[in-house]
């Protein structure tokens, strides 16, 4: 079997399996309800109900997309490998790398479906809010799409992180917890680095803390790079340079993680 077609076939199977997952279905339903609540949430704003609606919707999409990615990673990658269900496929002439890449391909497709679905729901909620306003600024849909793309990139990156930890760990829960850790750190490194660089701490930074922060900044994925929500909320001019940089950074980081994961998975003792 050609490696690419094997990856694609595995990807499709993973996608179907993911869509049948009860947990994912209930999370999507909760997301839909959350997004309907945009109408209520934005109502309390004094000056910027539309901005609040976009803000709330995108934050909800981001939180749900990340949670769904984490659970998908747990159910479709870690648990399957732990339960050795993958043996059935690996008995076929499919390399371990192709198996792992196929699973990631499926996870990525699921992330795309989830972000796309939640994004559409969010857009619906925002349009409803706008219809209820006498005077409202135009919605910058290009910026909104960019913000969704940023959320998708975070989900894909965290999916790749789960894959790497799954290739390493023997327990299913460990990769899940470690990915949560990477998510927390990835969201924080930029802010902490900016804080220390600007000398806002008031005191001189201890060298150990400085190294730790700088080390984390380069080692962990910098998820703040993919945050384009403010551009969508306040219809700021599109940050094309930053978007291109984030795209290159995200693609390289994911490729590196996949390379590491497949290398480690190939050498892993599966008996």
């Amino acid at each position, binding site marked *: 079997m050609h490696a690419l077609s094997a990856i694609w076939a595995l990807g499709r199977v993973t996608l179907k399996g993911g869509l049948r997952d009860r947990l994912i279905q209930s999370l999507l339903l909760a997301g839909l309800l959350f997004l309907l609540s945009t109408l209520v949430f934005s109502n309390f*704003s004094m000056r910027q109900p539309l901005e609040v609606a976009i803000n709330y919707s995108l934050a909800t999409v981001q939180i749900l997309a990340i949670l769904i990615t984490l659970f998908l990673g747990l159910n479709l990658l870690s648990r399957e490998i732990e339960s050795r269900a993958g043996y059935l496929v690996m008995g076929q002439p499919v390399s371990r790398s192709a198996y792992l890449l196929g699973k990631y391909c499926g996870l990525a497709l699921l992330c795309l479906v989830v972000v796309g679905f939640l994004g559409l729901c969010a857009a619906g909620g925002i349009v409803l809010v706008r219809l209820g306003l006498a005077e409202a600024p135009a919605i910058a849909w290009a910026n909104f799409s960019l913000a969704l793309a940023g959320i998708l990139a975070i989900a894909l990156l965290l999916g790749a992180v789960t894959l790497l930890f799954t290739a390493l760990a023997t327990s299913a829960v460990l990769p899940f917890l470690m990915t949560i850790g990477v998510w927390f750190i990835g969201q924080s490194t930029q802010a902490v680095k900016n804080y220390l660089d600007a000398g806002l701490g008031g005191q001189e930074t201890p060298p150990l803390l400085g190294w730790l922060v700088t080390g984390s900044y380069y080692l962990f994925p910098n998820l703040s790079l993919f945050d384009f929500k403010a551009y969508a909320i306040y219809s700021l001019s599109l940050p094309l340079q930053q978007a291109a940089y984030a795209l290159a950074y995200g693609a390289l980081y994911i490729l590196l993680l996949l390379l590491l994961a497949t290398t480690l998975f190939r050498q892993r003792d599966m008996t």
Partner: protein
Amino acid sequence: MKRLLAGLILAGLLAGLLALPPSLSGKGLAPLRFPSYPPSLALELMSLGNRELASTLIFYNAQFYFGEKYAWRKEAPEFQQLFLGLDKATDLDPRNMDCYYFAQGILSDLKPAIPVLNRLLEKGMRNRPNDWYLPFFLSANHYFQLNDPVTASRYLQKAAAINPDNAIFASLSARMLYQGNQTEAAIAYLEEFIKETNNPSVRKLLLKRLQALAAIRYLEKAVQAFREQRGEAPAGLTELLQAGIIKKLPSDPYGGTFALDSDGRIVTTSNLAEAWRKNDKRDHDQQAQ
């Protein structure tokens, strides 16, 4: 059937408990305090990439707290805590206009709060450069609370530059500058502003104000000439006529009469009042929107 009946009885009892007065249900017994939020960096880290949402949530909390404390419980709100919360909310999302608007609404009457409130509004101006409300608020604070008409007028000019079709800023600014004894600057500003204004009714209003300021400037120059000739200020404007420095007193387009006050400044009985009334109404309408 029995289960349904039991369910209905339980639901009815629960509804009864909820309907009890606050003193019995326990609600309202605990003192209502506005939370002391952790430093902005900690809030940013806790928001996990959703700074804007965290900012909105702090603002909502401030708004609900103020509503319950001030309007419902009729207690004095903790203004300083509220300010600190709003300051942190604007650290998280410096474009959150709700925070600036709310802060101005609740703090602008408190003189001791004005320096920090103005710093907050300055933060807003840096991050919302196209929002005329912020320089407008700053202008009001400088004019009414800090008695600084020159700075107030400078902020109004910034508001006018953002929204040139709104005559209120130019009119107010010109008046503030006039009271701050900066007539020349007021005229220059108005002339520049008129050039940028294509709305005919606004233009008409501005030209009227310009005419009034030009008359005031004309009289100020005449007083100056009188001082140079006689070495002392005139006792009244009629002395300028008697000395032959001016041939007749200019008329006030607002219907008042020009006079000289005890400080030697030109004043008018109209106090440019027509425009003030109009502007007050427009201000009110705009705030109400």
